[in-house]
């Protein structure tokens, strides 16, 4: 038995109005986000001559990505992104948990500290990168301070040294975004019922026990949000590298990331100046898209399973 479909005039006008109302947003979003993204994924399976699409090439671009001369670049950039992610997890999301916990225990002044800690996050990564480039430069104030304290002698070249440059960039990125975990963890901590902490206190748990055994399992949604956001941001990392170390990821590609490598392939700064390799760039883009998509889904599932309900 089929239900008779009666469309009232209100419903009909609503269908029409809805289409008219949604159209502007959908047109802008579809044209400038969805269309280029789908075309990029599609185009990664074709051969390219400059900015012109040639014949279908199957997985040829992808196999070129992994061999000489691209293989070493790809390997380096991927490894730097992974190191960057774990660095941020410890430096930013780990320290951030400590700060949030200390603020939560104190209560007083939390808003002030949160505002100060979050301030760098509203600044452009370009400003943050430029500022730290000046501070860390040879002859800059950090060198002066370390020399004055007797912790270091002579010229400070941490950004010019391929062993330390990546670590410095990760630290600058953590400085930039420290306020984010502090805000998200404190919002999470405030949602936990105070009785949980009181019960733990009566059982004689110290502050450290309370943080790791009581609060942390209940903070899984916050930790999940932060891990996913850090993952996405890390694998999109471009601005800080570009401003502090140049688009090549100096010195000698030691701070190169997947997106700086993508930029060089797409807009011509890799190898001979001005030569682009769109096929390689699109293949790298598709690979990054898959890494980000699969990684994000796995993380969301991982933290979803570990979410404790009280």
């Amino acid at each position, binding site marked *: 038995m089929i239900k008779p479909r009666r469309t009232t005039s209100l419903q009909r006008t609503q269908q029409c109005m809805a289409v008219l*109302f949604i159209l502007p*947003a*959908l047109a802008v979003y579809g044209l400038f986000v969805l269309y*280029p993204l789908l075309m990029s994924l599609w185009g990664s399976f074709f051969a390219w001559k400059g900015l012109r699409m040639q014949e279908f090439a199957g997985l040829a671009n992808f196999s070129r990505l992994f061999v000489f001369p691209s293989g070493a670049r790809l390997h380096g950039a991927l490894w730097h992104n992974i190191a960057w992610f774990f660095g941020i997890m410890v430096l930013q999301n780990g320290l951030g948990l400590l*700060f949030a916990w200390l603020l939560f*225990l*104190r209560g007083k002044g939390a808003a002030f500290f949160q505002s100060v800690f979050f301030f760098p996050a509203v600044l452009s990564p370009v400003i943050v990168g430029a500022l730290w480039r000046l*501070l860390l430069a040879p002859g800059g104030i950090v060198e002066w301070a370390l020399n004055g304290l007797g912790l270091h002698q002579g010229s400070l070249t941490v950004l010019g040294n391929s062993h330390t440059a990546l670590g410095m960039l990760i630290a600058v990125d953590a400085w930039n975004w420290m306020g984010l975990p502090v805000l998200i963890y404190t919002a999470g901590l405030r949602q936990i019922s105070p009785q949980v902490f009181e019960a733990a206190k009566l059982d004689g748990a110290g502050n450290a026990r309370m943080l790791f055994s009581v609060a942390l399992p209940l903070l899984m949604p916050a930790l999940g949000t932060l891990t996913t956001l850090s993952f996405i941001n890390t694998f999109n990392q471009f601005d800080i590298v570009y401003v502090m170390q140049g688009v090549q990821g100096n010195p000698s590609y030691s701070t190169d990331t997947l997106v700086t490598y993508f930029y060089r392939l797409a807009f011509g700064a890799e190898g001979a100046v001005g030569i682009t390799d769109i096929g390689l760039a699109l293949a790298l883009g598709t690979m990054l898209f898959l890494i980000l998509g699969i990684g994000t889904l796995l993380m969301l599932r991982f933290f979803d399973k570990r979410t404790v309900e009280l």
Partner: protein
Amino acid sequence: MSALSFQQTLAIPQRLARLPGWIILLVWTAAVLLPLYILVISCFKTTAEIYDNRLGLPQSFAFDNFVRAWTRADLGHNFINSLIVTGGAVILTIVVSAMAAYPLSRYKLGWNSIMLGLFLSGIMLPIRLASVELFTLMRTLGLLDSLTGLILVYSAIRIPFAVFIFANFMRVLPSELDEAARMDGAGEVRILFQIVLPMVKPAVSIVAIFTAIAVWNDFFFPLIFIFDDRYKTVPLAISVFVGQFRTDWGLVFASLAISMAPILIMYCLLARQIREGVGAGGGMK
């Protein structure tokens, strides 16, 4: 007497126990504020003074560096471009996203959730990876070297987040609200802009704040779409300065200060809304 001393013996170890925590918090406060303090005082110093007097206040608060950054390095021009792009993108994003969110959250269409899903999927999409095709598209449309082009791209990127926020706020408004207005013969456009939108002011401010921050700070899209100096935005100009005026530290510090001034002012005025917005959604970047 004994009661008092008992209280004291309890209070002092408790306070002592809290001391390391306070020290940790204050160390990070210094780590955030010291670089910014150095940035501000260095703006008023000559390069020689920056080397001689590292931490002290400048000899005089001369605006020489600011004047040179604004005029000789032409930062004033970039500043106006950034204001136009940011203002344009904020207004366009709010208008089209509110329009789309209104029927999606308040009509029974049968396809609300599919359409919402299509918009929401854009929150996570790594749009930078589409920049090659986006470049080709912009060239075809004649939108390279154009502030309008930047406004359109930024709006497109921010629409998913804005639709998400507006739909969440509009969904919980009572349905009598628009029904009563409809009885009175108000058109749907009027209902949206004169009745519904004023009721979701917090959503408007969240969208406005986070769109403004993201657009003002972005550097990637001007880098690939803008070649003409006349259309460069502040972050793009700054990235050039850092190399170009490498030895003129006073000028670079002053241009950094100028470029962060609007965000700093906004942050001081709206710190509470920003903290709550991030704490609730985490949807910042």
